[in-house]
């Protein structure tokens, strides 16, 4: 199949960027979206041009590193799918595809389609963990966790930190990401001890990173490759109010 691409090219954070047109012909529809970009880059390199920089690593939907806006949608048209798991069969022959980086003030552009998502790491660093040191944990069976609870915690823990929720939100809010970690932790007995301190610290960090506020548009859930539910945000809000009410206990 043939595709017309309009790709955002930007040298670095300081330089202005623009959409540049590229045409690719005779692509195999079984190709993944990133393999299509590889093919473009091979072509650009042999023609003496600089290839398009984009982030990716595992190419199996789990590392969270890939991610770009494809025709205005984070990770493209398929539901619950990362960019690397998207294949050309989802597009029509001759289609024009606009490819841009995830945009948010808290995710500054580094180059072309690459953005800086280290704000997520700082949010985790502010409290997204259980304060257990390594080496001396109690026996794992000592505390039972029901199947149901473990599965629910997993649903939230499954967030891959890709940032699509932020990119797709009109406020560039990180509420889905942050709330997923808070929910994962608070559901499990191990994470309960620090629940109040955790939620207050993480929300504070989230706010200081220039993410916007959540205004419940629920766009994040729609674009999230892991299907993280907005109910996590409700849980975060509850936990936050609870923490303020009962103090940091």
């Amino acid at each position, binding site marked *: 199949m043939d595709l017309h691409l309009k790709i955002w090219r930007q040298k670095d954070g300081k330089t202005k960027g623009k959409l540049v047109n590229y045409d690719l012909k005779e692509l195999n529809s*079984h190709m993944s979206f990133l393999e299509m970009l590889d093919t473009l880059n*091979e072509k650009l390199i042999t023609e003496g041009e600089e290839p398009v920089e984009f982030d990716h690593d*595992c*190419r199996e939907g789990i*590392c969270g590193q890939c991610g770009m806006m494809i025709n205005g949608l984070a990770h493209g048209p398929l539901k619950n799918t990362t960019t690397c798991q998207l294949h050309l069969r989802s597009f029509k022959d001759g289609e024009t595809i606009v490819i841009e980086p995830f945009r948010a003030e808290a995710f500054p552009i580094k180059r072309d389609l690459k953005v800086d998502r280290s704000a997520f790491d700082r949010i985790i660093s502010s409290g997204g*963990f259980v304060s257990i040191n390594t080496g001396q*944990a*109690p026996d794992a069976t000592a505390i039972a966790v029901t199947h149901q609870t473990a599965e629910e*915690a997993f649903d939230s823990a499954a967030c891959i930190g890709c940032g699509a929720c932020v990119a797709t939100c009109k406020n560039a809010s990180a509420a889905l990401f942050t709330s997923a970690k808070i929910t994962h932790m608070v559901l499990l007995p*191990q994470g309960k001890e620090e629940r109040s301190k955790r939620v207050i610290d993480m929300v504070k960090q989230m706010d200081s990173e220039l993410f916007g506020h959540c205004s419940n548009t629920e766009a994040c859930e729609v674009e999230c490759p892991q299907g993280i539910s907005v109910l996590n945000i409700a849980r975060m809000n509850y936990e936050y109010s609870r923490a303020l009410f009962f103090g940091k206990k």
Partner: protein
Amino acid sequence: MMLDSKIPQGPLEQKWTNYKKTAKLVNPANRKKLDVIVVGTGLAGSSIAASLGEMGYNVKSFCFQDSPRRAHSVAGQGGVNAAKNYKNDGDSVYRMFVDTLKGGDFRAREANVYRMAECSLNLIDQAVAQGVPFGREYGGYLNNRSFGGVQVSRTFYARGQTGQQLLLGAYQALMRQVGKKTIELFSRHEMLDLVVIDGKARGVIVRNLDTGEIERHAAHAVVLATGGYGKIYYLSTLAMGCNGSAIWRAHKKGALMASPSWIQVHPTSLPQSGDYQSKLTLMSESLRNDGRIWVPSKENETRAANDIPENERDYYLERRYPAFGNLAPRDISSRAAKERIDAGFGIGPLKNAVYLDFSKAIKEQGKEKIQEKYGNLFDMYLKITGYDAYQEPMMISPSAHFSMGGLWVDYELMTTIPGLFALGEANFADHGANRLGANSLLQASVDGYFIAPYTIANYLSNEIHTGKISTEDPAFEKAENAVKQQVENLININGTKTVDHYHKTLGKLLYDYCGLARNEKGLKYAIQEIQKLKAEFYRNVKVSGQGNSMNTELEKAGRVADYFEIGELMCYDALTRNESCGAHFREEYQTPDGEALRNDNEFQFISAWAWTGENKEPELIKEPLVFEEVQPTVRSYK
């Protein structure tokens, strides 16, 4: 050179306890004076960095991804082993030790393997305490299942994303220390050289991948936890960035490489569909618990899978290995698949696959049960291939997956360079010639959480009076200049072929001649071809862009440059082993019915290799393997 494996005295069960009892300690007040560099933030790297950070050392942590949470451990699917015996099916540390040793075809050190099994108990405790949501029974207790190659249920899992959840646990422990400022984090930094001063590892040279800046970092000890190099085959189950550069550069600075040719080929990955393809996706091994593997019994079958009647299907694993059937170990299952494919029974558009069929399991257990167990894998399969595996069997094929080889380390996980440690998949340690499923998330984790914290401390106890290591030392300058020179060289070649072209060519060569099957003639041929290819690369590769800015092509070029040399060493290694064992199948050494023929009399040793210089034959150094507890037996899965 004589290799000292430093295996502690005493009976097997006591060795690790004895070591810990006598290992030297560093007083908490002195730890502040000691710096440690940890390269890699996978399970091995994050866990050791977090451990050392908690203990009070100054730690610098490096990874090439944009966040430590994306290290390739995140991709681990099926599960992690631990001899907890929660199922009361007779599991024990000893049984796990025997299984692992046997699974590795008696090419691993007894003491190391025993220690891994012993520490496996603690790992589950550690992970649960960190909030890893392992699968649970309805009553609330931890659940586990059995996994390729063993007959007890000892594999713990978090859906099909065990690696992700274990890594998040380790990453969160790491980020907690980053928050406490005991660890300084350098993501998007790639280690390009090791700095050795007076024979000891004293630092690294890294490239800031965002700015292209070359930086010097000094420390009293350096830990490499940089994962595996299976991506050398280009098509593999590994992430695009996986590489062997860090360990290779350390090798060129004097660390020995062990068993480089032992690379596990996984039997259940998705087949290649075209030459644009960049990777092969793994379908979790756990699928083999319920899926049956078969090919048509007629050559060049053209009917669709569902149209082939039962009596025209060849369940070749069940046929050849009745005791283990579809759960036969990876090397055996992969080779059996290749054998059928090569014999003309392969299926799929490129005739390069076999079927993995769930129809029986769906009929017996119901679709819902199968959905609960493997739903995400079936979804993934649908996304990638466009086929619905609830309706028709999956197509799977073997794919390069895990490097059992790596830097040679002693019992303390220290390489032959004092102060340089290698953890996780970057070392050659505990898997022997074949890795059992679910043992490597384990190995990476226990190396970092439970073993290296003691052994590194033991080393550092002699460094308390060393004082700060200066990056002004001439060794740093020399290493930095060499790195800068290489960057410049690669940019200036300005030839006509892309880096990927060379990587793919090398990968194909290795797959054909140093892959699932090897022979003397092929290996000698491959060595010559690799040398030619490498020479051509340095004449004709095209790396666009600049050295002093973000440049993915340049990153890839550096890694491929190292892959040529690693590939060549793999072939030498395979060539000198005149036997078949585990992942290493030398066609000249097989039984009449096509099984691997091991030769314990002559090859009961670990091959460690020394770098002798550019374009020179490497030097082989043998570490004899002594088995006190378990006498080697022939592996039989019949």
